[in-house]
C-alpha cells in the first residue's frame, strides 16, 4: 500500500515559499537538462567564439593594417556591446520563446499545465538560466573580442548597467510575446525566430553604427524600442564619443528604454496568457 498523508496540508508549501520553491525547482531542472547535453554545452561556447572571430576578422579586413591593426576602442565598444544585446535577444527568442515548442513536442507542456504551479514562474526560470548562461558567454566573448580589436571602454558604468538591465527586461518580455506566438503558429515559430533574429541584426545595428544604414532604414530602426537599448547602452559605456547616441538625444533614449523595460514584460506575459486560453479552447497544447 502507498501511505497517504494524514494531514496533506502540512506537506504543502503556500504563498511566497511555494513560488520560490517552484522557481528554484524549475531552474534546477533546466540546468540539469542543459548539463546532460555535454556536446551542446561545449559547442555553444565554441560556436560563439567562432562567430565572434569570423565577424571580427571580417571587420578587420577594412582596417588599414588588417589583423595587425592597433586597438580601436570605439570599434571594440560598438561591436562588443551590441553583440551582448544580440546574444541575449537570440537566446531569449530560442530559450524562452521557442522553448515552449520544445516542451510541446516532448509532451511536457501539458504536464506543466496539469499542475497548479505558476506558469509565470516557469518562464522566469528560463530567464534565470538565460541570465546565467548567456551572461557567461557574453563575458567570455567580450574578453576575446577585446583581445582582438581593442580595449573595451567602461565609462559611466552604473548608468550603463541600468540601461542594460532595462533593455534585458524588455528583451525578456519580447521572449514572452514570442512564446505566445509559438503557441499559435507552432513549427512556423522557428522560421519567425530566424527572421526576427536577422531583422534585429540589421535594424538594431548591433555590429555597426546606425549611421552605416541608409536614412530610410534608420527610420525603421527608430520604431523598434530595442534599437534605443543598443544605442543608449553602448553610447553610455563608450563615454558618448562624437555623434553618440545616434538615434535620439540620450534623455529620450533612456525614457524609451525605461518604458520598454517596464511595459514589455507585462505585455508579453499578457499575450502569453491569451494564447494559453486560445490553446486550451482549441486543444492545441498537446499538438506536436
Amino acid at each position, binding site marked *: 500500500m502507498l501511505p497517504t498523508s494524514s494531514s496533506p496540508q502540512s506537506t504543502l508549501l503556500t504563498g511566497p515559499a511555494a513560488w520560490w520553491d517552484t522557481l528554484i525547482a524549475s531552474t534546477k531542472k533546466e540546468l540539469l537538462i542543459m548539463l546532460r547535453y555535454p556536446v551542446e554545452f561545449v559547442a555553444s561556447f565554441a560556436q560563439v567564439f*567562432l562567430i565572434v572571430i*569570423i565577424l571580427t576578422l571580417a571587420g578587420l579586413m577594412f582596417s588599414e593594417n588588417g589583423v595587425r591593426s592597433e586597438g580601436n576602442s570605439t570599434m571594440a565598444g560598438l561591436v562588443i556591446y551590441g553583440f551582448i544585446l544580440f546574444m541575449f535577444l537570440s537566446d531569449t527568442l530560442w530559450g524562452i520563446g521557442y522553448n515552449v515548442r520544445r516542451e510541446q513536442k516532448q509532451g511536457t507542456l501539458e504536464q506543466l499545465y496539469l499542475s497548479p504551479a505558476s506558469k509565470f514562474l516557469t518562464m522566469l526560470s528560463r530567464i534565470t538560466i538565460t541570465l546565467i548562461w548567456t551572461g557567461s558567454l557574453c563575458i567570455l566573448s567580450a574578453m576575446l573580442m577585446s583581445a582582438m580589436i581593442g580595449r573595451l571602454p567602461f565609462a559611466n558604468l552604473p548608468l550603463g548597467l541600468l540601461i542594460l538591465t532595462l533593455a534585458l527586461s524588455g528583451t525578456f518580455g519580447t521572449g514572452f510575446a514570442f512564446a505566445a506566438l509559438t503557441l499559435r503558429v507552432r513549427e*512556423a515559430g522557428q*522560421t519567425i525566430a530566424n527572421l526576427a533574429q536577422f531583422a534585429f*541584426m540589421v535594424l538594431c545595428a548591433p555590429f555597426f553604427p546606425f*549611421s552605416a544604414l541608409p536614412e530610410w532604414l534608420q527610420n525603421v530602426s527608430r520604431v523598434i524600442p530595442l534599437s534605443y537599448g543598443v544605442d543608449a547602452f553602448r553610447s553610455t559605456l563608450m563615454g558618448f564619443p562624437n555623434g553618440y547616441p545616434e538615434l535620439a538625444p540620450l534623455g529620450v533614449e533612456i525614457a524609451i528604454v525605461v518604458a520598454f523595460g517596464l511595459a514589455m514584460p507585462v505585455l508579453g506575459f499578457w499575450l502569453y496568457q491569451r494564447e494559453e486560453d486560445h490553446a486550451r479552447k482549441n486543444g492545441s497544447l498537446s499538438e506536436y
Partner: protein
Amino acid sequence: MTATTYKPPTPGQQLSALLAETRLRMLNISRYPGQLVMEIIIPIVFAAMPMLLGRATAGADAGANFKANTGTANYVAFLLIGSNVFTLVSNAFWHIAYWLRFEQETGTLEAVYLTPTSSLTLASGVALYSVIRGLVAALLAYFVGCLVFRVNPFEGDIVLALAFIVVGLIPLYGIALLFGALVLKVKESNALINLMQWGVGFLMGIFFPITVMPPFVRFVALLFPPTWMTNGVRSALLGVGFFFGQWYLDWAVLWAFLLIVPLFSFWAFNRVEGNLKRNEGVGQF
C-alpha cells in the same frame, strides 16, 4: 510452395529510389516557402554585417584597405561569395548530417533500414535535393545581394566560378556524410552540426582570406574542399589569386578531393552503421 528469388536492385531501380527521395524532400519543403525565402535573405544579411561595420569605420578608405588585405576592392562580392558558399556548406550539413539524426529521432530510420534500398542511395537522394535547393538559394542570394549593394554580379569568369562550385559540391557532401556518421554516434545533432558548420565556415575563410590565419590553422583549412571552392570562386570572379597560381592546379586539387573524400566518407559511414547495428541498433536514440 515456390521460393521467391531475391534479385538485387538494378541501377535503374536505385536511381528511381534516389529520385523518389529527392521528390519527397522537394514536396516537403514546398510547404514551407518562408524557409526558402529566408535562405536567400540570410546570406545577404550576414554579409552585410561586416560590410556596414567596415564602411562605417573605414569610411572612404574601405575599398582601398580591403584590397590591401584581401586582393580586391570589391568587398561586396567578396563577402557575398563567402556567405553564399557558406550557405552551401550549411545546407550540406543540415540536410545530410541532420537528416540521419532526424530520422533516428522520429523512428523512421529503422523503417528505412527495413527496405531493400540502401541508406546510401537515400542519402544521395537527399544530397541531390540539397544541392538543388542550395544552389538555387546561393545563386539568387548572390545576385540579389549584388543588386542591393549595387555591384555588378556578372563581373569576372562566371563559368570558371561555376566549375569550382560544381566540382567542390561532391566532396563537400562527402564531408557532410562523414559528419553524419559522427552525429549518429554522438547523437546531440543540433549542437554538433552548428559547431561543425561554423568550424568549416571559419576554416574556409568565409569573410577573409586564409592568409590571415596562423600557419598550422591555414594548413588545416587547406584540407577542406570548401576552402578551395571559396577561393576558386573569388579568384575566378574577383582575381584574388589561386592558391597554386593557376586555376587548373586549384581545380585539380578539388578533383582529387572529389575522388578521395566520398570514398573515405562512405567507408566511415558504413563502419559506424555496422557498429550501431551490432550494438544498440540504428533506431536507438
